[in-house]
């Protein structure tokens, strides 16, 4: 069990900057998920924490100890790989004990740890099997077991669920959450799947192009994204964006107008006349009956039915598409004209540089 501190971490391959001045503090026992599009540097960051890739600058502390110069095994970490990376020529038991031989764990202790991990992960019957005889989910559990028996200070997961099918992904996700509850260990988890991030994390780190865009609790990221990137990345389907402009300011109250939606009042003292804005509204916050300042009109073009709700794609006045989630059995029909409304709390406003504009509506 340990905390993890990353300071001014940089990584360059030749002239390309892969990671740019990363600062991150992870508390003891915290479950942190690194999420971002592919190529954002999240896996590189994880490999640098593990010690598999060297840093071009900056420090990594694990449990208060500077580990920059330490080998992976000396850092007190255990890593679970996307490909599971089980030793194909060893059975499950040997896979789990192989590393322990070299770290001075006596045989009786090794057996005890394997037995405990096997019980926790329901692997008891599989201990004498070889990886080729296991299903994907079982292999993943063995990979996790191999990490557990090392009793590491920090667990590192590199997209552990992306090789599993959808049903297994959900059940393994629950198992990992349970595991964290039982072990109470520090976990750093990399994924590109925002559902995994939202469901598992104590805190989410959203990364983009080698930089951290925002760090926060899942619901904070959802309800108050710090910038356009996070707003568009978290949530599915993605947030609708509308280009807008400040028309008039009167005593801290700005009138925001744009193509395709009705202009509305916004209580944001920092805005000035002529400011270019982006207004964001999530599909699930657009409703027909709701009451609110934001209203957008469109013609239904396409409807995706999911069962408990449907996604309607509407074409608005400026000929762009936006999405609205419609709950209940009553699905809209294509060609129908609809006016959709969002409440004041659900309207996100971003300035020209993409940063969130704080409004008093949120309070």
């Amino acid at each position, binding site marked *: 069990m340990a905390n993890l501190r990353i300071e001014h971490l940089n990584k360059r391959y030749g002239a390309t900057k892969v990671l740019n001045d990363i600062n991150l503090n992870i508390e003891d026992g915290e479950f942190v998920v690194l999420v971002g599009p592919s190529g954002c540097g999240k896996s590189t960051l994880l490999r640098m924490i593990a010690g598999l890739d060297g840093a071009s600058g900056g420090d990594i502390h694990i449990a208060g100890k500077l580990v920059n110069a330490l080998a992976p*095994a000396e850092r007190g970490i255990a890593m679970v790989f996307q490909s599971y990376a089980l*030793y194909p020529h060893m059975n499950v038991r040997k896979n789990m004990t*192989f590393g322990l031989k070299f770290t001075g764990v006596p045989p009786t202790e090794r057996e005890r740890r394997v037995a405990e991990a096997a019980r926790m992960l329901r692997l008891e019957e599989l201990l004498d099997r070889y990886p080729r005889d296991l299903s994907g989910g079982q292999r993943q559990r063995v990979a996790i077991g191999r990490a557990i028996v090392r009793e590491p200070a920090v667990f590192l997961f590199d997209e552990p669920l992306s090789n599993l099918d959808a049903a297994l992904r959900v059940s393994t996700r629950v198992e990992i959450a349970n595991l964290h509850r039982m072990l109470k260990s520090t976990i750093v988890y990399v994924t590109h799947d925002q559902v995994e991030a939202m469901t598992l994390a104590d805190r989410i780190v959203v990364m983009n192009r080698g930089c951290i865009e925002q760090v926060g609790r899942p619901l904070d990221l959802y309800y108050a994204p710090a910038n356009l990137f996070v707003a568009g990345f978290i949530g599915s389907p993605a947030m609708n964006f509308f280009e807008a402009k400040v028309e008039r300011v009167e005593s801290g109250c700005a009138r925001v107008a744009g193509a395709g939606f009705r202009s509305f009042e916004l209580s944001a003292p920092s805005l000035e006349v002529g400011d270019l804005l982006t207004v964001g509204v999530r599909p699930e916050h657009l409703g027909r009956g709701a009451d609110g300042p934001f209203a957008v009109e469109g013609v239904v073009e396409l409807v995706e039915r999911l069962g408990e709700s449907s996604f309607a794609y509407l074409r608005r006045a400026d000929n762009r598409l936006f999405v609205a989630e419609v709950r209940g059995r009553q699905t809209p029909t294509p060609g129908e004209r609809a006016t959709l409304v969002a409440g004041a709390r659900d309207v996100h406003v971003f300035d020209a540089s993409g940063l969130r504009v704080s409004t008093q509506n949120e309070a």
Partner: protein
Amino acid sequence: MSGKQRARSFSVHLILIAYSLLAVGPILLVVMNSFKMRSAIFGAPLAPPDATTFSLIGYQKVFRTAHILTYYSNSLIVTLVSMALVLLFGAMAAWALTEYRFRGSTALALFLSIGIMVPIRLGSVAILNMMRSAGLNDTLTALILVYVAQGLPMSIFILSEFIQQIPKDLRDAARCDGVPEIRIFFEVVAPLLRPAIATVAVFTIVPIWNDLWFPLILTSSDTTHTVTLGVQQFLGQYITDWNSVLAALSMAILPVVVIYVILSRQLIAGLTSGAVK
């Protein structure tokens, strides 16, 4: 299968069968005639031995007159020790060159690949001088050293290709597990290289076992001769003892065939691995 495809497949097989006959024919002829009397060898060279022509005289002579068992054990020692060293050092060098980036690693890889292109026999005179001044003249050690040098470049080249196919995650996982580098090589990488090692083993063994040149220039006494060289003593300038030559040659073929049969399953896996996932 359409008629055109069938015709193509037929012609391909025809060529392959012709080639097989061409390759196997002489060997069959040698083995067949080694069991015949001298008069029958010349009288009807293409006929198989029958009740009247069957004779073991060649084998009897070989065992009586020559140090055939010494030659045999010399050949075995030289071949097996060379093979073991080529595989060990070849695999280790291939691992180092593919896994680690160090100053001069590219230059070293290029240097080693030159060994594939330049035949080692070009250096015969230099090798002879070196062995003589090292006091290794007329020893099996000299042969082993030469064969290791001859086999290494190709084995490094082939094994590097195979090592690159082993998933990187596996080595990373072992490193996270705290496995020392040398144990990663011997206990994680090497077991996965088995098919590749069988392939390299066959490619290494055959030319060494069949080599005549280096035993001829590097060994001079009966105690260090190999089988291929030993056979030569039956080939005289004026008289050739064909019974003995054919018997000795038949015996020389045997070990290579045995080793090939043992390794062939692995060999086929090695040659085709990577073709399908």
